[in-house]
């Protein structure tokens, strides 16, 4: 109980800062007078008042956080902050139900991009800005989570990243380390966002749209201010900009940091996963372009390539924009795209899925087993980026990979049991669990998650959270052992 209160205190202070994020849409709403100002004002007051109250009430329990408290804090952040984030949505969109609002907020903060709303073009722009700002804040949180917290906990072999992160490695306290490492990454994140917004603006978007989509792109979220997503703009230039920034955002921030601080592009090459990531992405774009062209869906190869490039990169990096209804493509293409989104992005990026790092380790371990079978007494290693991966980490990664597939199956069964057809159920499970966004069938790119029933919406919300917190973080909090003294 004491631990819960101590964490709650930190939580309340984070919520206080989170509340300040409402000032951006408030400013925009006031400036263009879109009628949502009242909703944001009330939400701001409620959030600040509520969190200040909790912070004061639990003030006595403040103490240095330990590793276990970190787990709890992370889980609480991702479960409770969406609650706060629903306030402006519920107040600003009359008739919106809490289930859908919470789904939308979770989808925002986990940088998923699956939406339960339709008629986005008719919403006050400030509300759309708030939706993608959630992506952006979530993206910040994800970087901290992926680079600073999960490696300390050793979730699914994340320790691997620890060695590469600059700054002192302290085993006991989390806080000093978080601030240390996070700062560098936030600067990169901010710089990327500004560059992306500028590029969108110069590429022909209105400046507000540019900001909204930059938030969404850099966080690999996928919310848009238009129902038609990128088909609304129908501009190859804007699509190219998206492809560039989505690709960059899918690479580990640790690697970006190394490149910038060393002023050399070599870390991209020496990184164990970036070459795989880029290679798989490029090969898949070409494969899908050739496939849909050969199947006669597009008459010209250049058109096929344009749409294949945009949608494949968008789904594979777990962004989730669409420039066309790719669910209508011959079925292999969207299935391959969903397959990619489950592993393509790099560990330490804002993307979802099991991450390329783990996929490479799993792949190499399978080959190691074959070698073992031929030479039973040989001593073999799995190497990543030139370094030997310890067995302990491989075990963790294997366990993680297995748990990941099991969760996908369970979510699919849960959605199918509650009445969704198999394509919709499976694709919704994959798209939410990998924090991608649009699925296929009922929840395809030209539709939205509003068609699902309440139970299914909750399953999808849970899948997004579980995927974002890399399963074990959330599972651990749910085990009795965690709460034992």
């Amino acid at each position, binding site marked *: 109980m004491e631990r819960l209160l101590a964490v709650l205190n930190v939580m309340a202070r984070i919520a206080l800062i989170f509340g300040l994020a409402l000032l951006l849409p408030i400013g925009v709403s006031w400036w263009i007078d879109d009628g949502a100002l009242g909703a944001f004002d009330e939400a701001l007051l409620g959030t600040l008042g509520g969190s200040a109250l909790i912070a004061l009430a639990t003030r006595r329990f403040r103490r240095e956080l330990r590793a276990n408290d970190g787990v709890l804090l992370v889980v609480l952040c991702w479960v409770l902050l969406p609650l706060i984030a629903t306030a402006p949505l519920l107040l600003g969109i009359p008739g919106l139900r809490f289930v859908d609002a919470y789904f939308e907020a979770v989808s925002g903060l986990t940088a998923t991009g699956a939406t339960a709303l339709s008629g986005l073009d008719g919403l006050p722009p400030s509300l759309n800005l708030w939706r993608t700002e959630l992506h952006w804040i979530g993206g910040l949180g994800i970087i901290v989570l992926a680079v600073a917290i999960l490696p300390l906990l050793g979730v699914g072999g994340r320790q691997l990243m620890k060695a590469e992160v600059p700054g002192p490695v302290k085993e006991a306290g989390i806080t000093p380390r978080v601030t240390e490492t996070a700062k560098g990454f936030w600067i990169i994140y901010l710089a990327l966002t500004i560059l992306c917004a500028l590029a969108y603006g110069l590429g022909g978007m209105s400046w507000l749209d540019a900001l909204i989509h930059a938030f969404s792109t850099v966080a690999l979220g996928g919310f848009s201010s238009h129902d038609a997503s990128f088909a609304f703009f129908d501009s190859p230039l804007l699509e190219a900009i998206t492809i560039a920034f989505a690709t960059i955002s899918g690479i580990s921030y640790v690697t970006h940091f190394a490149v910038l601080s060393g002023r050399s592009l070599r870390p991209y090459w020496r990184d164990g996963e970036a070459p795989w990531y880029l290679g798989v992405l490029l090969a898949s774009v070409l494969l899908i372009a050739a496939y849909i062209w050969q199947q006669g869906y597009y008459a010209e190869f250049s058109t096929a390539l344009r749409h294949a490039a945009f949608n494949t990169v968008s789904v594979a990096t777990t962004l989730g924009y669409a420039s066309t209804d790719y669910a209508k493509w011959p079925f292999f293409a969207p299935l391959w795209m969903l397959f990619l989104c489950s592993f393509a992005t790099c560990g330490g990026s804002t993307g979802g899925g099991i991450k390329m790092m783990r996929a490479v380790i799993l792949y190499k371990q399978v080959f190691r*087993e074959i070698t073992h079978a031929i030479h039973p007494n040989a001593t073999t290693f799995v190497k990543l980026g030139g370094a030997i991966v310890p067995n302990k980490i491989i*075990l963790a990664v*294997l*366990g993680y990979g*297995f*748990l990941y597939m099991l969760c996908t199956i369970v979510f699919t069964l849960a959605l199918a049991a509650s009445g969704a057809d198999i394509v919709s159920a499976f694709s919704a499970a994959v798209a939410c669990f990998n924090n991608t966004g649009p699925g296929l069938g009922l929840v395809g790119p030209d539709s939205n998650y509003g068609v699902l029933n309440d139970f299914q919406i909750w399953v999808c919300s849970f899948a997004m959270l579980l995927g974002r917190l890399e399963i*074990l973080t959330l599972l651990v909090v749910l*085990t009795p052992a965690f709460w034992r003294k």
Partner: protein
Amino acid sequence: MSNPLAVIRVFALVLLVFALTMLVPMIVAWAGRDAAVTAFQSGFVATFLSAALLWLLTRRHVDELRVRDGYLLVSLVWVGMPAFATIPLMLYLPQMSFTDAYFETVSGLTTTGATVIEGLDTLPFSINLWRTGLVFLGGMGLIVLVVAILPLLGVGGRQLFSAESPGPLKDTKLTPRMAQTAKGLWLVYLALAVLCTLGYVWAGMGWGDAVMHMFSTLGLGGFSSHDASYAHFNSPAVEAVAIVFMTLAGMNFATHYMAIRRRDLAFYWIDPEIRWYVGVLYASVLGIAAYLWWTGTYPDFATALRFAAFNTVSIATTTGFANTDYAQWPFLAPMWMLFLCSFVTCAGSTGGGIKMMRAIIVFRQVMREVVRIVHPSAVRTVKLAEAPLPNKIVFAVLAFSFAYMAIIVSLTLLMVFSGLDVVTGFSAVVASFNNTGPGLGEVGPSTTFKSLSDFQTWVCTAAMLLGRLEIFTLLVVLSPAFWRK
């Protein structure tokens, strides 16, 4: 690699014995004066001569087989024998392509039970006897394979099982051990065969049908002499007998052997898998029955229970009989049944999938990872039957399970790529790879695999072989490193 020619010599001997088994349907055909006599005569002569020729050419290469030769021998037997088994089928059914005939015989020898033949009821008794006889032979071969050979090869953590099977463990020599262990287990297999036949006859089948379905039941295959499978009999008594013997055949034969030899049922309780196997199986039966009743598929619980029990046990044990078109049930039920067939049967049985043993190990390893996050410094081992498992085995099991899932995903993508819908593609792959038999959609229980294209049929054939030889056996032989000096 000691000497491939020595391996071929052993293969020739196995083939010689296999040729002799063709005499049984030949005599039956001759006695019943059905039209397949010549087909079996030619089949026997061709197989016998080929085997004799192979043996003559390699007879001087009498080397003791080493562990590595085991991979080659096993692959050769399971890839080569079905080719010879096709001869009677192709001669009797001249319009049948080699692709289809090979699929049918691989399906038999791997005890899968997927068929491409329509109009089974009109086929001569001898042909159906040959088809189901292949399942029975495959089952006998499997017992040697899974209990005596694979543990020695250490495929996917199989070392574990060697400790439990009777017979001395001799370091690297293959043949003495095979003979030793096989004998006792075959006795159990034959005893069950006699009991099962008597059971079927008692329940009302004719002797011919009883023998054929006994073959299919004990091998956990699923071939029937009727297009309608068990719906043809429409008899709860027959179904009850089938359920009992399928359940028995899904247990480890080594456990049966020990229990019979020592006259002590406690061995079933000591066996770490059986309680899980029985528990999961019958909990699923009750769950599916309740679900069917609740969704109104059947008006009363008793009928729901009858159909749920037979079809669930049949699919989960990877047999593949059906007494109704369960693909028409609410989708969760057949999905759950397919899910079960991928792990429920015990290691050392004639069933397919990853086996309950590995499922338990994977599950415990995942739990271990969860505990490790809560207590980072705790030392914990994965235990099975009170004994801690070496990490090496946990590794092999996890890598196996991962390769297993990766292959399902890849083959499904391949099927969809070649133009199948996703339900048919996925279920065909799962049903073939787990050696179950019927899938869903176009390859559901009420249809056959005939509608698949040649390419898709070959994918399924490969899946059956990969699944039966526990993936790595085949992969090892296909890897270049295996053939290097």
